[in-house]
């Protein structure tokens, strides 16, 4: 629900990206339970996990491609294609709901359409005493009203 589920075949890796993946695999594949750290490293550096590097990962860890694919698609955090623009997450868990996050989500859905952002729900950022909470790129924002949300989007546009 909170991730893109496209087939991702439109985003093959470039030679440069392949090299990045190779470096990650060289550094990590001997670590016990290395798959999640590897996927995190790749996504942190490339912004997503290209479908055509799944085979490289599988080979390095000596597991099947299906297993690697299964892990990537199981976890909400991993993306098989790049996010469009900045990632904007609005918390929709109970504490935020009690302070109007459902209305904020509806507002955000409309507002985000005019911006180059990927809007996603998130279920708890741990800012439950200062709800509703939003994360934009790596930054947290608390007590976000629709007005404040639009201001944050505008700042994002300015910064771009």
């Amino acid at each position, binding site marked *: *629900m*909170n991730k893109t589920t496209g087939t991702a075949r439109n985003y093959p890796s470039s030679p440069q990206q392949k090299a990045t993946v190779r470096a990650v695999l060289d550094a990590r594949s001997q670590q*016990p*339970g*290395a*798959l*999640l*750290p590897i*996927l*995190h490293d790749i996504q942190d550096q490339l912004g997503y996990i290209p479908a055509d590097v799944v085979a490289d990962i599988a080979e390095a*860890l000596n597991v099947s491609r299906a*297993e690697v694919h*299964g*892990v990537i698609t*199981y*976890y*909400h*955090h*991993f993306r098989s294609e790049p996010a469009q623009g900045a990632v904007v997450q609005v918390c929709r*868990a*109970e*504490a*935020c*709901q*009690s*302070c109007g996050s459902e209305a904020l989500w509806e507002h955000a859905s409309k507002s985000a359409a005019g911006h180059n952002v990927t809007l996603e729900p*998130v*279920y*708890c*950022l*741990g*800012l*439950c*005493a*200062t*709800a509703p*909470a939003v*994360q934009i790129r*790596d*930054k*947290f*924002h*608390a*007590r976000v009203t629709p007005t404040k949300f639009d201001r944050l989007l505008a700042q994002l546009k300015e910064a771009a």
Partner: protein
Amino acid sequence: MSTAVKIYVPRDSAALALGADETAAAIQSEAKKRNIAIELVRNSSRGLFWLEPLVEVATQKGRVAYGPVQAEDVARLFDVGFQNGGAHKLGLGLTEEIDYLKKQERLTFARMGITDPVSLEDYQAHEGYAGLRKALEIKPTDVVQQVLDSGLRGRGGAAFPAGIKWKTVAAAQADQKYVVCNADEGDSGTFSDRMTMEGDPYMLIEGMTIAAMATGATRGYIYVRSEYPHAIANLNEAIARATKAGFLGDSVLGSGRAFHLEVRKGAGSYVCGEETAMLESIEGKRGIVRAKPPIPALQGLFGKPTVINNVITYASVPIILARGAAFYANYGMGRSKGTLPIQLAGNIKHGGLVEKAFGVTLRELVFTYGGGTASGRPVKAIQVGGPLGAYVPEQHWDLPMDYEGWTAVGATVGHGGIVVHDDTSDMRKLARYAMEFCAIESCGKCTPCRIGSTRGVEVIDRLADADRQGKPEVKAQQVKLLRDLCDTMVNGSLCAMGGMTPFPVLSALNHYPQDFGLSNPDKKAA
């Protein structure tokens, strides 16, 4: 003034989300402009979140607080000489004298907001590592005995006695044992783990090290959710510093006993908060629940004996060792010993962290500490213990907090998260959300959870339709179906995800029937 004034600006996530970085920058530049020598310390949060960013200055009388301080307030604060404790409308007086803080019983959170989180010197100056030093002086079996005698129970939700787990792992024979910290704090309304990892990471590291020394484990993992980037960064820095200083590594404090610790980042899966799903995730697999037995204490991570506790459980251990089991066990009531860091969240005026001994009531927490709702409207429902916890109606608000006592009335202490809803909340929508959340997050291994949650959403929707269309017989039928479905989920699920999702649903249905269009409730215990 010749020496620099110490000014504290928190770097806790919630403070940052309210502009603490901007406030800190404004203080730096304003001080420079005015030629005032300051030492800016980025401390952790005291947990009084309605006052964040809470700026403190060190004066001869003690630390004086101002809050909430936004960047635009800073110049005026310097105008009144706040760096010397000058009077201002944001002034709160001596921090320690603030009622909310003064009335607490902070054992685990004693350092919170006071120290620089990654400073080992600060940590040790405030009783840090006294517990580990004690643990290294006595036999491992005596360490386990201390934890047993303290009565400490797992603070993650299941409330299993920590000492019994430790004893099982200590007695197991294996070439490798592990200590794993479950820091996948995914429950809405909970943030005490996040605060601990961000604000006092050495306390967790010390607790895990004591567990390793007690059980013979040499490797440890802290599994932290990806939604907590600041916690991950602080832990990594603290682990690096602790390793360099000899508190971790091949020979912990020169004892000849090894303990290596590593942070593992989760990837946005709620069910990985369940201990066996978490183990699968650390092993690099999909986070799917394992059937028990075997218990993780005997066959846990990579099939080896593993101690698994959550953040607050480990964080409670150093003080038990440092001051003795009896000291800790003196707090609390019945079989619920010690203190619990309780998180006041949602629609609440004074949201924050309150550490109290067991025995405190919901009414005291929500109204005396919390000050009622933020919206100023009447409190309608209080959900306790996370998304899988029940909505507790007013008749139980005066019940002392105690694991057994609360279970008896269908409530869950859980991880101590409290989410307040005012009278505008629609309990049917919240019940539907509980089912929907379970459908999104179910690992899919067992049918009651995977299919039951989807059916649960449908049944609640049909119930709402029947209500709108005025079909009482359909409503009655759907209510019966919903109860039946909940019964199957409670009794047929492998783990708490499917097994407890019915708690919020049934408590909403039982205590707020009017929201479901039911006037004559068919009362059954959740």
